[in-house]
């Protein structure tokens, strides 16, 4: 029994080495495979079927409850609100026939609705909007985005949120079947871009009430008025299909007949499915992105999400941290190489950010990017950082600082946190960083308790205006959670919101000034990067529109050409 195990031990090593060699084998097939699919956008194929991957399940199809990207994306393709983001990421009238009538003060909007139908054949009326919006603001519904998006904008929304008014008092009214009147709290320049957001989609009252709790919990108990209808979604499953909606008003522009979606959570599996021809699109991350960087099938998309370090000035809202010292904050914000971080560590299409309001996001009336006003602030500069650091240390009367760094627990964020820790400790002598990597929910919890020193965080916009980012850092801002308070900043923001509400140019400048105070003067946060994404997409997929925020994709215009 014990003899000669040596023999098989050596055979074991042999097998092991085969296994290793196998791993190192060539990937030669890939290069030649897809060369035939590079015909220029020709006529659509006979079979219009798209196969795609989502990264998570649909939590709900109820437009007032949805909070996540996947849910918003699905809703964007099966439903339609007054407005819709077009191929250029501009909100354009959809169910609304055209631009609304606005009163002189800019507080009453009157929308005219086009003739359009729900998937059950009934007409989409103004009442469907009124009902859905009021349902969203009703505290019992528990909609996150309802009160959040409406408060301070639509009349009485704030009071309803506080319980001081009833949902029926909300400033929205169906004048008749085809006319919707919205009354605002105050003039809001970005109001129309909100109309493309999923919270403001219509819902048919009769249907919602009939389905009760089951409403929008699977594809049969949901009603659609968009380009596609949902099929085969059981509420918690990993697959569903979109099928062209024959009741959609603009169905002539919808070319795809069917879209098959599968949820795949492992990137590697997604890429394997793509490579084997099973799927037409797959997201790329980290190392995968690096490997495919020069592949003709790679698409890069800029997203409107900035990521930054939050400096907590008062631990749990009470005790001041060393980060209350502006020089220390400035030092940290300049002490890491953002370019290396985004290009080499993330390498997923993200790029360095020296600002809060992202590039290619908000434009003034002449089409000029908001970024052109302030440009870059607090760029990486190790020497300057060290100067600030020493100054700060002297003010604090210490030479050693230990800080807790709160980050996410995904592979990528772990890698990034390690890099940041390394950079900061290298460039700021005397600093030691303790990483604390936790699941998202825990991080949110610690954030709300202000139980951290430095936190890595990001923000995705809710509407297309710099205000969506800048209002985060108001002294009483709900998302502030780091005890940042600047009278100067608050003043600029107040001006932008009220005094200059109807004066776009001055408002723009005030917002820019606020950003400058936040980042350059106070270094309240340290911008790190603006997110970009990379994906592999077969070249026969045409006009699949990727949005930079909110819902990720629109399939309305997409078609297949040259697959056969």
């Amino acid at each position, binding site marked *: *029994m*014990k*003899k*000669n*195990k*040596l023999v*098989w*031990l050596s055979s*074991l090593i042999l097998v*092991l080495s085969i*296994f*290793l060699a196998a*791993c*190192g084998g*060539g*990937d*030669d097939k*890939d*290069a030649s495979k897809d060369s035939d699919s590079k015909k220029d956008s020709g006529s659509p194929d006979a079979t219009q079927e798209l196969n795609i991957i989502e990264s998570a399940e649909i939590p709900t199809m109820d437009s007032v409850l949805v909070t996540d990207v996947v849910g918003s994306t699905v809703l964007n393709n099966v439903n339609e609100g007054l407005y819709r983001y077009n191929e250029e990421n501009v909100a354009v009238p959809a169910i609304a026939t055209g631009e609304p009538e606005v009163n002189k003060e800019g507080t009453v909007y009157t929308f005219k609705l086009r003739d359009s139908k729900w998937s059950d054949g009934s007409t989409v009326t103004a009442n469907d909007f009124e009902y859905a919006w009021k349902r969203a603001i009703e505290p019992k519904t528990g909609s996150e985005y309802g009160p959040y998006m409406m408060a301070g904008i639509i009349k009485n929304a704030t009071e309803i949120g506080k319980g001081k008014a009833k949902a029926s008092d909300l400033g929205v009214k169906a004048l008749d079947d085809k006319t919707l009147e919205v009354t605002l709290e105050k003039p809001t320049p970005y109001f129309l871009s909100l109309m493309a957001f999923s919270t403001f989609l219509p819902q048919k009252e009769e249907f919602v009430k009939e389905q009760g709790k089951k409403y929008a919990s699977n594809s049969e108990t949901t009603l659609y008025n968009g380009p596609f209808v949902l099929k085969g979604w059981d509420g918690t499953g990993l697959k569903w299909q979109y099928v062209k909606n024959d009741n959609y008003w603009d169905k002539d522009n919808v070319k795809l007949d069917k879209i098959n979606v599968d949820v795949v959570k*492992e*990137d*590697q599996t997604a890429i394997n499915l793509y490579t084997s021809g099973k799927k037409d699109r797959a997201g790329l991350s*980290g*190392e*995968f992105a*690096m*490997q*495919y*960087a*020069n*592949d003709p099938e790679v698409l890069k998309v800029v997203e409107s999400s900035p990521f930054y370090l939050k400096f907590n000035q008062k631990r749990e809202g009470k005790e001041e941290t060393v980060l209350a010292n502006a020089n220390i904050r400035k030092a940290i914000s300049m002490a890491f*190489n953002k370019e*290396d971080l985004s290009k*080499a*560590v993330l390498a997923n299409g993200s790029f360095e950010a020296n600002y809060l309001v992202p590039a290619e996001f908000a434009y003034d009336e002449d089409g000029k990017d908001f970024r052109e006003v302030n440009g870059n602030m607090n760029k990486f500069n190790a020497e300057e950082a060290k100067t600030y650091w020493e100054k700060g240390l002297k003010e604090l009367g210490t030479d050693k600082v230990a800080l807790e760094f709160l980050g996410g*627990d*995904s*592979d990528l964020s*772990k*890698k990034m*946190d*390690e*890099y940041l*820790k*390394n950079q900061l400790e290298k460039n700021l002598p005397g600093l030691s960083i303790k*990483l*604390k*990597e*936790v*699941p998202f929910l825990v991080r949110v919890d610690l954030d709300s308790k202000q139980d951290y020193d430095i936190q890595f965080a990001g923000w995705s916009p809710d509407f297309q205006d710099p205000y969506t980012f800048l209002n985060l850092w108001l002294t009483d801002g709900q998302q502030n959670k780091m005890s940042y308070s600047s009278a100067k900043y608050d003043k600029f923001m107040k001006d932008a919101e009220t005094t200059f509400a109807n004066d776009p140019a001055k408002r723009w400048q005030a917002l820019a000034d606020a950003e400058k105070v936040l980042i350059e003067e106070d270094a309240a946060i340290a911008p790190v990067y603006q997110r970009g994404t990379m994906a592999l997409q077969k070249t026969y997929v045409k006009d699949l529109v990727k949005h930079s925020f909110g819902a990720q994709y629109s399939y309305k215009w997409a078609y297949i050409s040259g697959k056969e």
Partner: protein
Amino acid sequence: MTKEYPKLPPEAFKHVHMDGSQTEKISKPSLNFWQDAWLRIRKNKAAVVSIFVLTFIVLMSLVGPMISPHDFETQEITHANLPPKVPGLEKIGIFDGTGKMGGKEINLYEMKNVDTYYWFGTDGLGRDMFSRVWKGTQISLLIALIAAVIDMVIGVAYGGISAYYGGRVDDAMQRVVEILYGIPTLVVVILMILVMDPGIMAIIIAISITGWIGMSRIVRGQVLKYKNQEFVLAARTLGASNGRIIKKHLLPNVMAIIIINTMFTIPSAIFFEAFLSFIGLGLQSPNASLGTLINDGYRLIQFQPHILAIPAAILSLLMIAFNLIGDGLRDALDPKMKD
């Protein structure tokens, strides 16, 4: 038929004197338990090779991070994702720093202008895989060892007490075990780690929280078997205390099975740690374990196989070594197997 026999000298027929006092003498040198075990395990070549492999890995895990010119934490981002390159071996065409980039074979060291050698390559942050792998091995072994020792102590104490005192004590203690046995270990471990601050301690506690049950069952069985045997009864009749009986008579007999079982606990603890890394509950960076290294690497099988292959190979070697040593010890320590 007559046969010629060699003629024996008369001296050969001398009478041998039987010395009664010498009959009980054992001519072989007396061997204690361990010498005996060693003698027998020495014949088991697989186990011997495994012991060498294991010793080598343990030594490397201690000195490895030191002999590499690169530190396990230092990041050199421009040196990220380099394949292994070993001086000497590069001349014969292996470990020469060639890797794939965008589907083509190129020498990544030349492309990135790197003139140093990374024996095991680098990871995505440009850290030296050589020192990381050995550091990771060290931490994996540490976790496994501590978990195994905790398992052993609790399990032996629990099983021993339960069996030795018997009766009601045994009954009560076994009911508890029966209930605990039904709890899915995996789930408990996951829940524990969710509650505790993630880290080495959390993993060790989580692994040992139910790990001792198996050990306690085995020890109990063994003690039950021995405690009524004649040599124990004899000792008791001669007035030996409970402590003496346990220490001098029971423990040495149960020892073998405890050690064997520990040999199998260690690899399963290492394995479990790897599994925890996969579902995202493993160690916190920049600490590395074999589990986290493999978890980082397995996604990159197609592009940077070295990031997976080296820690996976060491993990496999460890598993195999422990299992074979365990097998060998079982054969060597089991009196039935004596040849």
